């Protein structure tokens, strides 16, 4: 199995090490020719969504990735990755793939002083550690979307078919069960 990790900006190294801890081969996507490789799944990391969105367009990756996602390629986005996968973003519009039927609020917990750590239930996994960094949350989700985790009455993880998103950063904790979930329940069940 080979998973491509979008490596334009942000915390992609942390995702790569989590995936490698699960014996998965990974490669970085930084330019168009990187998409020529065979890919069973895609991870969009945390970082700044405006930066990553801009680079997706500028480096001419956006259309090809959007086509792959639309064709059902499994994709997992954390934080900025969730914003980039959402159908609608409150406030600013962005270069988004529109792949999951949710409305996302950016910087929903405020500035860095609002960043926090907690432990909460994740449907199908159990209690997991969650690190929120200037995080977004899901304001509303359509019926076809499976809500996987709720913290303080806000949706922080969801799935629609091949698309998995979290507000928090499982890659910043030592727990790799959300990555395992992505591999076992989404990529291998495809």
């Amino acid at each position: 199995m080979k998973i491509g990790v979008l490596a334009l900006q942000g915390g992609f190294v942390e995702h790569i090490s989590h995936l490698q801890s699960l014996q998965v081969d990974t490669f970085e996507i930084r330019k168009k020719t990187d998409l020529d490789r065979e890919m069973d799944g895609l991870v969009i990391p945390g970082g700044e969504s405006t930066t990553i969105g801009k680079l997706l367009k500028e480096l001419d990756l956006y259309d090809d990735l959007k086509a792959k996602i639309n064709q059902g390629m499994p994709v997992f986005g954390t934080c900025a990755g969730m914003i980039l996968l959402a159908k609608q973003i409150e406030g600013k519009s962005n270069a988004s793939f529109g792949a999951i039927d949710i409305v996302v609020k950016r910087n929903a917990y405020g500035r860095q002083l609002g960043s926090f750590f907690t432990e909460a239930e994740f449907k199908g996994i159990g209690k997991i550690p969650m690190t929120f960094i200037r995080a977004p949350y899901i304001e509303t989700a359509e019926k076809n979307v499976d809500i996987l985790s709720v913290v303080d009455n806000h949706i922080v993880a969801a799935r629609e078919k091949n698309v998995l998103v979290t507000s928090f950063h499982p890659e910043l904790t030592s727990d790799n069960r959300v990555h395992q979930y992505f591999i076992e329940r989404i990529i291998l069940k495809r």
Partner: protein
Amino acid sequence: MKNERYELNKNLAQMLKGGVIMDVSTPEQARIAEAAGAAAVMALERIPADIRAAGGVSRMSDPKMIRGIQAAVSIPVMAKVRIGHFVEAQILEALEIDYIDESEVLSPADDKYHVDKTKFKVPFVCGAKNLGEALRRVAEGASMIRTKGEPGTGDVIQAVRHMRAMMSEIRRIQSMQQDELYHAAKELQVPYSLVQYVHENGKLPVVNFAAGGVATPADAALMMQLGAEGVFVGSGIFKSGNPEKRAQAIVKAVTNYNDPKILAEISEDLGEAMVGINESEIQLLMAERGV
């Protein structure tokens, strides 16, 4: 709880990796930086080149100006305090700044002590020109490090020197025997636990950016190839002929720092780079402030 906050602050720096942090002095410049793909902006009244030219005492920026920039963009906003000026830091914390840069670019307020950064909830980034300085700042609570370089010059030589010094010292520590580490901690004047971390992990315990004198996409890529995890660009953008285009090019250079073909493409036709001053021509070495 205290440790948890420090972890979250180190985590924010991790999210800035592979990004460019740009100096801006107006909301308008902040919007240009954000649109160009900056991962964060540094709000300051005068960019280092102007501070250098103006001389005199340079202080924390007007909170009103910082608020204006916070309102203009959705990316993280950083701002500078003078070395050791913990009240300026308290003020920036009250503004809910995303990162405080305790910076040698401003006139130092204390020639002996840095700010005790463990007393704050907001994160700090500090400059360093070698491993000892970097680890001392981490011991004081910094959650991100950058090279000092020589700000406001457009001359990359000092940033290169500082990054090379840090990386080579890290490699030296990595190859040491356990019993040599105690002595290394003594030599570097840093806590043993931090030396131990560097020995085991081959890197700093926090994210490490390049700063000071980066003016072109090639400069940014050079710093990345030397081991920086991202780049601060100060005067290099808004002192150049075409800030927007140069900013975009530097952002792309940091992502594709290992691809000379892409670097060649984006280096084309950027207009005039900042004129710059050579290291040997400058009167004031900001890097010597705060060791």
